[in-house]
């Protein structure tokens, strides 16, 4: 590998742009896509490898090329520097996610409470406008406070985020849904929200809830059925139902 190719590859990755390194196995000749124009067969293999997040080999004119995709990092944007966020933080990096925590309450959003996490103390609407969640982003709201959660969910619903989760009981969520509808979101958009957040593992403690949320995010990322949002039961006019109902 030429140092110059390595430098260009690293620059693309630092700028969080998707890039594919193609290497000819016979002599080590290398190209970067889409930064360089390539024969259609190679460009298509490169595009496909990025989409599938999987390295592959492709044969062209008797030569084998190794097609090695480098996607920008996956991100988890969490609103609320709360206990659950603290428990999620050490799981995020090993699972391949950069974690960003947004919380304007400076007493919560401290480096001490959340080491190794990107902290933002601006308001969620401003933070989301800058973070621009994309198809490789998950957004999770954990504050229970509509002033903080709603603007983040509003922005997330307008984005291509692959996962949107909101902490709160079914009752809290029913009220939230009503508010989001007032902001102009339809049923289909609102159905993207995972609420109650996390896989149903009867989680009780903050680390258990963090585990259930991380597992659900991984399921969504990997396209597992478990990662689909569950349909919400109809709200029950404030009554709490207990036990098994038909």
């Amino acid at each position, binding site marked *: *590998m030429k140092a110059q190719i390595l430098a260009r590859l690293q620059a693309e990755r630092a700028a969080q742009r998707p890039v594919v390194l193609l290497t000819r196995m016979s002599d080590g000749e290398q190209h970067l896509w889409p930064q360089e124009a390539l024969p259609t067969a190679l460009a298509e293999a490169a595009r496909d490898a990025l989409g599938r997040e999987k390295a592959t080999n492709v044969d062209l004119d008797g030569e084998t090329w190794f097609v090695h*995709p480098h996607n920008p990092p996956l991100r988890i944007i969490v609103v609320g520097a709360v206990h659950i966020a603290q428990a999620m933080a050490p799981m995020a990096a090993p699972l391949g996610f950069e974690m960003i925590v947004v919380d304007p309450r400076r007493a919560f959003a401290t480096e001490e409470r959340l080491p190794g996490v*990107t902290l933002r103390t601006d308001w969620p609407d401003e933070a989301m406008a800058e973070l621009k969640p994309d198809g490789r982003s998950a957004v999770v709201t954990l504050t229970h406070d509509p002033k903080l959660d709603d603007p983040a969910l509003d922005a997330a619903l307008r984005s291509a985020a692959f996962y949107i989760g909101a902490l709160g009981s079914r009752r809290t969520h029913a009220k939230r849904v009503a508010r989001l509808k007032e902001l102009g979101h339809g049923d289909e958009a609102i159905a993207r929200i995972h609420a109650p957040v996390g896989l149903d593992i009867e989680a009780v403690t903050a680390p258990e809830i963090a585990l259930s949320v991380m597992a659900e995010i991984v399921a969504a990322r990997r396209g597992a059925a478990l990662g689909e949002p569950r349909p919400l039961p109809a709200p029950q006019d404030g009554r709490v139902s207990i036990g098994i109902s038909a």
Partner: protein
Amino acid sequence: MTADTTQSEDILATAAAWKAAGEQVAIATVVETWGSSPRPAGSRLAVTASGKLTGSVSGGCIEGAVADAAKQAMATGAPQLLDFGVSDERAWEVGLSCGGKVKVFVEPLT
């Protein structure tokens, strides 16, 4: 601060830093796997002529042989495509006992 999201990210940065510090560096990449190989295609290992090593291309079974090939690649300046598998005597020597097969591309950083 930005967390590194995959192992291969550290490895390229480390390789670049070694090179910048005047070391001779080679990069090995898993380019194809069959069966139960421990590291997926795209996994990287970087080594220096002085013996520094980061990353991995297997569960540890072929790293030694790959490092040897890397030294050669650094000496000659030419890349090599290595083939390890159960049917390969060399692989048996180095002990790819998981029963998988793996191809590793070794290239000098020039």
